[in-house]
């Protein structure tokens, strides 16, 4: 690890001031950043520690939604009574990620900012356009079993690793970002992550010097009847090969509103308007779920070793939809 300077931020303004230093970065849980600093993949010259900032609360909003502080630990979010009852897909997704120890460290903001698990990105011996723009992509013609079948470009096919972000997109969540000028902007969770295109090094809308402060989740009629299904190489403590977040509003056994978002198969949390179109107005049954799964994966492009992900994702989609449809939706308002 290369040497770096360190400062603990006293408050939000202090954090924003300090992060203006050259090559400065915020550190929260550290579970991605310190890992990648050990590998010389991320090389900050200055760490601004934001662990003391009072952004660690989950609050109810007047409209029935939730405001989740950027420093809320993943374990606290997953075990929060309101999240479990009214936004079950979020609790399930967070508990499907990492381990209890890591969830005690990892934060809401940090989870949104986590980097891909592409092993070529994590190893400086290989070409990677995400790590070093213009150097090439070792994955496209390499061993690409864990890579994306949706949203890739000729520059990058790395998957986005987050489970939490997949659930947030399904819940129409909004990310609140404080700018270096002090103003705040709001970005829909669905628009927060960027497709790799020609600039795979640019992964989110966050600009240098900006700080994620909150994530808000609106009250909705589909949030309570929601579920997350994650398929992976082992039963726990592993990243997704394919995952699906489903949320349904049912009226007389028909689907009034649907959200379907995929993880593990795409370069960003992947909302499927094609699947949602199939689901809307249809009966909540296996035939509909099968058609939705087919629609979601219709434009998928397999690479040499990851073709299995297309069928795997379809099964995750069908299971997530069935699970959401069968859930009791106790917290539905």
């Amino acid at each position: 690890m290369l040497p770096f300077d360190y400062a603990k931020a006293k408050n939000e303004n202090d954090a924003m001031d300090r992060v203006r230093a050259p090559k400065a970065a915020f550190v929260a849980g550290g579970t991605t950043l310190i890992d990648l600093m050990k590998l010389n993949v991320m090389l900050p010259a200055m760490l601004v520690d934001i662990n003391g900032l009072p952004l660690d609360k989950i609050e109810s909003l007047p409209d029935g939604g939730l405001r989740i502080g950027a420093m809320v630990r993943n374990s606290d979010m997953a075990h929060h009574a309101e999240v479990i009852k009214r936004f079950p897909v979020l609790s399930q997704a967070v508990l499907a990620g990492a381990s209890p120890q890591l969830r005690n460290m990892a934060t809401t903001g940090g989870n949104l900012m986590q980097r891909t698990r592409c092993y070529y990105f994590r190893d400086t011996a290989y070409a990677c356009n995400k790590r070093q723009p213009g150097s090439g992509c070792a994955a496209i013609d390499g061993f690409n079993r864990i890579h994306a079948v949706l949203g890739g470009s000729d520059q990058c096919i790395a998957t986005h690793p987050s489970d939490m972000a997949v659930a947030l997109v399904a819940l129409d969540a909004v990310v609140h970002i404080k700018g270096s000028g002090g103003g705040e902007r709001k970005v829909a969770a669905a628009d927060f992550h960027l497709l790799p295109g020609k600039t795979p090094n640019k992964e989110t809308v966050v600009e240098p010097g900006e700080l994620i402060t909150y994530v808000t989740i609106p009250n909705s009629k589909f949030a309570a009847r929601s579920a997350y299904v994650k398929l992976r190489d082992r039963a726990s403590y592993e990243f997704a090969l394919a995952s699906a977040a489903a949320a349904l509003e049912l009226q007389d056994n028909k689907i009034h509103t649907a959200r379907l978002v995929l993880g593990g198969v795409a370069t960003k949390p992947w909302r499927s308007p094609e699947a949602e179109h199939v689901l809307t107005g249809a009966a909540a049954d296996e035939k509909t779920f099968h058609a939705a799964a087919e629609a979601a994966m219709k434009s998928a492009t397999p690479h040499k070793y990851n073709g299995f992900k297309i069928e795997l994702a379809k099964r995750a989609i069908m299971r997530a939809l069935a699970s959401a449809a069968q859930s009791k939706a106790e917290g539905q308002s």
Partner: protein
Amino acid sequence: MTRAELDRRKFLQIAAAAGAVTVFPDVEFSHAATEPQASGVVMHPVSLSVNGTVHQLQIDTRATLLDTLREQLQLFGTKKGCDHGQCGACTVHVNGRRVNSCLTLAVMHDGDQITTIEGLAQGEQLSPMQAAFVEHDGFQCGYCTPGQIMSATALLKEPCGPSDDDIRECMSGNICRCGAYPNILAAVKSVRKS
């Protein structure tokens, strides 16, 4: 710790240092040890409360909590397995919650209360979880055991379901390559029951 273990550790440290001198040029050593400014190394003060004892340290900002416990405080019970948050051997408690000490910097823990495996026993009296691991033979080689016991101890205060599968899920952040899982599960169950 037995006399034999201490002697083995000292021997390995001396051997490693001697080996390193022959491999690396002297300048590499002087960077870290005597010329912190010249090499850009940043030292930072931190106050760590470890197992109830407060330590005032001046440490390299790069030092993880794990390396600081082992190298600065000579608390070798906490183990380095993967060093990347993938195995759980380095699990300690920070302010009562279990974390991977390999993925957090010591400078980030100024004023925090840290508990390591050395802090569980009361004198010669093993903690209930330590005693259960002995009783149920919850280990083979023993390398992952401190992390397993720190996780299992924290689990007692966490929202973890009642079934065997719930416990397996709550313990999934600790890998045991000997495969002592059935006995680890038995040990955790026995303490949860009592």
